């Protein structure tokens, strides 16, 4: 699939993601200007008051953006999924450059001009308006330019919390291991950054050259553009609010989850009269769980063992039935309902290259433990942390590697082991890439991993209010086999097909249960 073809076939989605991206950056930059310029003025006037604020903005700037989203998600008011938290984070990042350049711009003004203004009888606010701000304006615009360009980049991360924007394509492309889809988001995002950079550079130059009247006009143009963008955001937010009868379907950020999210969404759409809002490709387990509990999403597919250990911090248990009963009870306490399992299990797959397994005669993890000391390992972030993840696995099989395992993005893991960058990885048993890359899955002969039965988790009040949703989704129980799931994953990951199409085709073959 070429890039142009992708854009042509996804034109309306692309337009809306691009629009969201512009709105995220525009709204956050606007608020950052309204807050940052006064803070910058204060910092220039009263360094003792201003210094701590600048320090704080500095500290904020050093927090990685994904971590910042993680901190803020559970907070009231600013937290939750969607554009609100994204805009808040973008504001925080945009503040520092604007504060900095405002302060620097004011401080660099020739004191003679300030003295001249004062001696002519300007009040401090007149001096600010007539002399200081106009002279600092090119510097402030430079700060706005930097803030907006940073914002365009950071906004791509916002897709992880369901804020939309061009990051959707980047994340989707990463999980599909499809460079075309990554580029479909990355190129317009880079172009947007360059365009903003260029436009504001022109404004900056015009301000430096022009007189008061011309500078005023340029400022007015920029300001009205900003206001238009803000109005657009308000409009979009308002439009989103409309229509209460919406079921929000979420998913984690890997292929299988996106396909399952589509299956859930399309089932509701075809079997009920409700509208579905897709909030697919959210961050990992923790973000989905928080989103479900806070009502930002109404349903997503979880795996029993993951819920047991990662969400409820229960002991690792290998009895599938007991685990399912336990999580059903724990979810119910939180006002969440687990539907009957979908039919397949997505356990962790410990993978090595196929030729390595053949040469060394490896079949089980116990076989592999002997060779591990000369291997390098790569694991996803979650696997490194989870109670049912790497630490216990290493204990159970006595695994040691050449170096501590490398943390990698899930989407890169299969290629990394296939290309020999690492020797041993933890993937998903259902991944289509296992076959596509010719990887060998090692058997968990000591039964370390708990069961990972996939099941839909939904908010109980939503199912009560809409029994037809429950009926529709329950019909999916037991209908998706491991083979089905691997085939669908492979269709997306190896054949680069659209997850929505793959889901649609699957539902058609099972005859819309």
């Amino acid at each position, binding site marked *: 699939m070429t890039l142009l073809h992708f854009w042509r076939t996804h034109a309306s989605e692309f337009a809306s993601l691009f629009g969201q991206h512009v709105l995220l950056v525009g709204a956050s930059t606007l608020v950052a200007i309204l807050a940052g310029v006064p803070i910058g003025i204060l910092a220039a006037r009263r360094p003792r008051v201003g210094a701590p604020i600048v320090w704080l903005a500095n500290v904020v700037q050093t927090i990685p953006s994904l971590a910042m989203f993680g901190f803020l998600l559970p907070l009231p008011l600013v937290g939750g999924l969607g554009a609100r938290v994204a805009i808040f984070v973008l504001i925080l990042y945009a503040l520092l450059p604007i504060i900095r350049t405002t302060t620097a711009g004011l401080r660099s003004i*020739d004191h*003679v*001009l300030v*003295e*001249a*203004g*004062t*001696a*002519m*009888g*300007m*009040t401090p606010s*007149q001096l600010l308006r*007539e*002399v200081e701000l*106009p*002279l600092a304006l090119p510097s402030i615009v430079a700060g706005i330019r930097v803030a907006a360009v940073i914002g365009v980049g950071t906004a791509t991360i916002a897709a992880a919390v369901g804020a939309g924007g061009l990051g959707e394509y980047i994340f989707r492309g990463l999980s599909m291991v499809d460079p075309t889809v990554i580029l479909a988001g990355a190129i317009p995002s880079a172009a947007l950054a360059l365009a903003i950079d260029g436009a504001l550079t022109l404004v900056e130059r015009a301000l430096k050259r*022009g*007189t*008061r*009247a011309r*500078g005023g006009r340029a400022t007015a143009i920029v300001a009205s553009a900003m206001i238009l963008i803000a109005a657009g955001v308000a409009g979009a937010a308002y439009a989103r609010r409309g229509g209460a009868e919406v079921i929000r379907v979420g998913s984690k950020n890997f292929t299988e989850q996106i396909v399952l999210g589509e299956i859930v969404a399309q089932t509701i759409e075809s079997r009920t009269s409700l509208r579905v809002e897709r909030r697919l490709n959210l961050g990992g387990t923790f973000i989905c769980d928080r989103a479900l509990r806070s009502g930002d999403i109404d349903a997503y597919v979880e795996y029993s063992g993951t819920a047991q250990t990662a969400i409820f911090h229960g002991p690792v248990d290998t009895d599938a039935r007991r685990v399912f009963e336990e999580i059903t009870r724990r979810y119910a306490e939180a006002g969440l309902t687990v539907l009957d399992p979908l039919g397949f299990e997505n356990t962790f797959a410990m993978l090595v290259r196929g030729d390595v397994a053949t040469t060394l005669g490896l079949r089980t993890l116990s076989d592999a433990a002997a060779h591990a000391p000369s291997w390098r390992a790569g694991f996803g972030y979650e696997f490194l942390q989870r109670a049912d993840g790497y630490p216990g696995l290493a204990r159970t099989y006595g695994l040691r590697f050449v170096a501590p395992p490398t943390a990698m993005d899930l989407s890169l893991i299969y290629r990394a082991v296939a290309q020999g960058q690492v020797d041993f990885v933890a993937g998903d048993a259902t991944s289509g890439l296992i076959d596509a890359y010719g990887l060998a899955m090692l058997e968990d002969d000591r039964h370390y991993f708990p069961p990972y039965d996939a099941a839909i988790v939904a908010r109980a009040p939503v199912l009560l209010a809409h029994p037809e949703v429950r009926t529709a989704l329950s019909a999916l129980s037991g209908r998706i086999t491991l083979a089905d799931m691997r085939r669908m994953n492979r269709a997306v990951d190896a054949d680069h097909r659209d997850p929505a199409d793959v889901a649609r085709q699957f539902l058609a073959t099972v005859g819309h249960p």
Partner: protein
Amino acid sequence: MSESAQATAIAFENVDVARGSVPVLHGFTLAIPAGETLALVGRSGAGKSTILKLINRLLLPDSGDVLVESRSTRDWSRFELRRRTGYVMQEVGLFPHMSIEENIATVPRLLGWEASRIAARVKELLDLVGLDAATFSERRPDQLSGGQRQRVGVARALAADPPILLMDEPFGALDPVTRGEMHREFRRIQRLVRKTVVLVTHDMAEAFALGTRVGVLADGALAMIGEPAAVARSSDPRVRPLLEPLMEATGVFAGTR
């Protein structure tokens, strides 16, 4: 208002000012009649600029009083006072982001004049300082020569027709030829506008060229004040060193104009 109040525009009464623990002015007393051009001469650090800043309340005295139009500067609204005292400085301090017209219009704008009145006044002032309004109104300060900039500086200081004009080394940064030209211009303008002018300079020649009275500052007090001719004849050891460069330049100092 009494007769003497009208006659005396500015008065210093026993003023003390210190910068930190260093006294700048000590027991300084001076009366400046309305309409005179007083040139104050002194070395760097003699307190010349301090005197100007006391008049428009950029500074307040530590003790004593500065009276402007018989009212202590402490009792003036500082903004009102400054809008009634034009201020010309060596660096000129034209606002680089404003056109010449906008620069001159600054104080009238602060005073809320109507646009048509401001436009007429700007044109009148450009004529007064010898700049063609059509040519210069829209220009930016960096498109002007040093002498032209200083003319605009004078026009800006006179914009709202203030009764008092303060000039801090106004022509010090100009080359000697331009400076001479500006001295003639200043005398022509002053004949037309008749302001109370207080001018400070370190250059005795400039003081003689411009002042109707000349005061010599030394050690935070007035060493001497009088007609230029009287000052030129002074044998006061605090005044002579300031006169010497003049005599060296002209061979024999032949009095004043």
